[in-house]
């Protein structure tokens, strides 16, 4: 038995460091959360209210930020004047579709890669992962040309396939690590007990199911937040939320209220999802290199 932390003794230095650490943490939290706060509050402000700023250096004037009459009109206009309903649906279908496809095919491939050895496996594996790491713009140039000739540009299936370029390798890579951690002996034991190969495979599914579920969510997150593919491949028929938000920058007026409202609409669902799969985030975001 031992305490949670390595022991520390009170010295003037450690006290000073503690104060500094608290200060740093507070400042960092302000810097990291303030944008969200501004976004949220501004989405309820009329244009001229959003333009109000105190004089430079007038720190007390910061209360101006709260001087406004809340209006919900930016949110309603997203759905009446713009078709954010459709864009949300597009985002959902594109992100969800690619996530499901990636995880289904990805888990089959990952399972096989985890259970069988063959020559060139490492190279195959590296190819898979490098697909995921390729710069989006670099991939876009030829992909666009190809999708173009297949009439996939501007369609949801096109966008789903485009998202699969980064979600599928991600799923294979990370799920392989996942299957690697399930002892093969479980399946062997099952087979010794008399089950078929497939039944044996099914027996380990409960072990990996939570992880697979989490990576579906992660794939959705990556796809949902994408902008470049959506702007180029999805342009036209498959406009997603980030693109629609960007397009609120209108020539006549930059509709900051609506942009902030759209930002809230785009970001809030992902934050909730992020909380749900919080445990798997580190693993997912580091490509499985770091586990929490």
């Amino acid at each position, binding site marked *: 038995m031992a305490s949670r932390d390595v022991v520390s003794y009170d010295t003037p230095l450690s006290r000073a460091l503690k104060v500094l650490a608290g200060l740093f943490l507070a400042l960092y939290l302000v810097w990291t959360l303030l944008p969200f706060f501004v976004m949220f509050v501004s989405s309820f402000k009329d244009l001229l209210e959003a333009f109000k700023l105190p004089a430079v250096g007038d720190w007390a004037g910061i209360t101006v930020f709260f001087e406004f009459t809340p209006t919900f009109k930016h949110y309603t206009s997203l759905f009446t004047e713009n078709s954010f309903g459709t864009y949300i649906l597009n985002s959902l279908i594109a992100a969800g579709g690619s996530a499901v496809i990636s995880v289904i095919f990805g888990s089959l491939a990952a399972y*096989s890669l985890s259970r069988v050895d063959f020559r060139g496996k490492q190279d195959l594996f590296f190819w898979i992962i490098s697909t995921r790491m390729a710069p989006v713009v670099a991939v876009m140039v030829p992909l666009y040309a190809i999708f173009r000739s297949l009439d996939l540009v501007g369609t949801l299936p096109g966008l789903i396939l485009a998202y699969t370029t980064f979600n599928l390798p991600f799923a294979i890579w990370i799920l392989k690590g*996942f299957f690697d951690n399930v002892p093969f002996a479980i399946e062997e034991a099952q087979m010794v007990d008399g089950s078929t190969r497939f039944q044996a495979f099914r027996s380990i599914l409960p072990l990996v199911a939570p992880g697979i579920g989490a990576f579906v969510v992660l794939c959705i997150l990556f796809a949902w937040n994408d902008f470049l593919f959506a702007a180029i491949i999805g342009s036209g028929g498959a406009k997603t939320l980030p693109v629609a938000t960007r397009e609120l920058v209108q020539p006549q007026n930059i509709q900051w209220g609506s942009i902030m409202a759209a*930002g809230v609409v785009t970001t809030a669902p992902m934050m909730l999802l992020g909380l749900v799969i919080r445990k798997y985030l580190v693993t997912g975001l580091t490509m499985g290199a770091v586990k929490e």
Partner: protein
Amino acid sequence: MTDVSPISANPREVAAQIFRARAHSAEVEARPQSEITNKPRSFNPPMPKRYYYYLMAPAIAILAFISLYPFFWLIVMSLQDVDIGGGEWVGFKNYVKLFSDGRFLDGWWLLAQYSVMCLGLQVGLGVLLAVVVNSSKYEKYLVTALLMPMMMAPAVAGLLWLFLYNGTFGWYHWILQSAGILDNASILASANTAMYAIVLVDVWQWTPLITIIALAGLKRVPRDQLEANMVDGASPLRNFFAITMPNLYPVLLIAVLLRFMDNFRFIDSVLVLTGGGPGSATKILPVYLFEVAFKFFKLGRGAAIALTLLIVTIILGKLLVRVFEKPQNEKG
């Protein structure tokens, strides 16, 4: 990384429970631990190999279609003066021209600057933050709060910061001005500061990634090493640099490589914030590539630029994979 961590341990533990529940486990448990591996023993595979290949095939086919095929297209295009419909062969002209193209070389130079600045700040802040958070009672809540920026679409983050940086009504602009850091012009309005502006947004959004990676690393710093060093006579600060940091290096290296590649991959926020300007102060290579390919429609030249970008990424990727695999080799 080398230790069996909770996530990876999870299936194992569940598996172990299943074992215990099974009566016939004697045979399995009799085997030394090292033999209970994840791989089938090479003799007598329980399923013909070809079935595994069948399972792999769809994923590999999709990947080939959306990655390999485009890659060859890219090479072909880079040797052509190309329209979308087709083009004429020009050999290596596209490549030769690149090296007299100041914007291309600047693009690399700016990309390097951008990446180094982003990473320097992210690693510094991220590790510091991880240490502070790690010793806090409220770690769980803090981490949740810190994760928020990462959940935001980079394009939306770009717009949000555009709003905050705005010289007329942006609150960050006001704060910077009031604090005397910025004189008059908005941070985006000067070629000298625009780079910092896009770096700051990247730092805002991705420092938490380094933090959670470092946090995971901190949890795995062997406690007895820290304590041994304390007994040996180290002060807490000394202990941090002598034991904690060396133990963090491998995870941090992974974090750095990942972020490096992401800086190559994602330009959403830069496109939204500056589009490469003012002048070409923030025209990092991927932004220039985007311009060449989708504004000037010089797909051939674009393909050539894309290939150079890909090659560097692949080299970085190789490095990353090597880091991934290293701990296992050195284990024990």
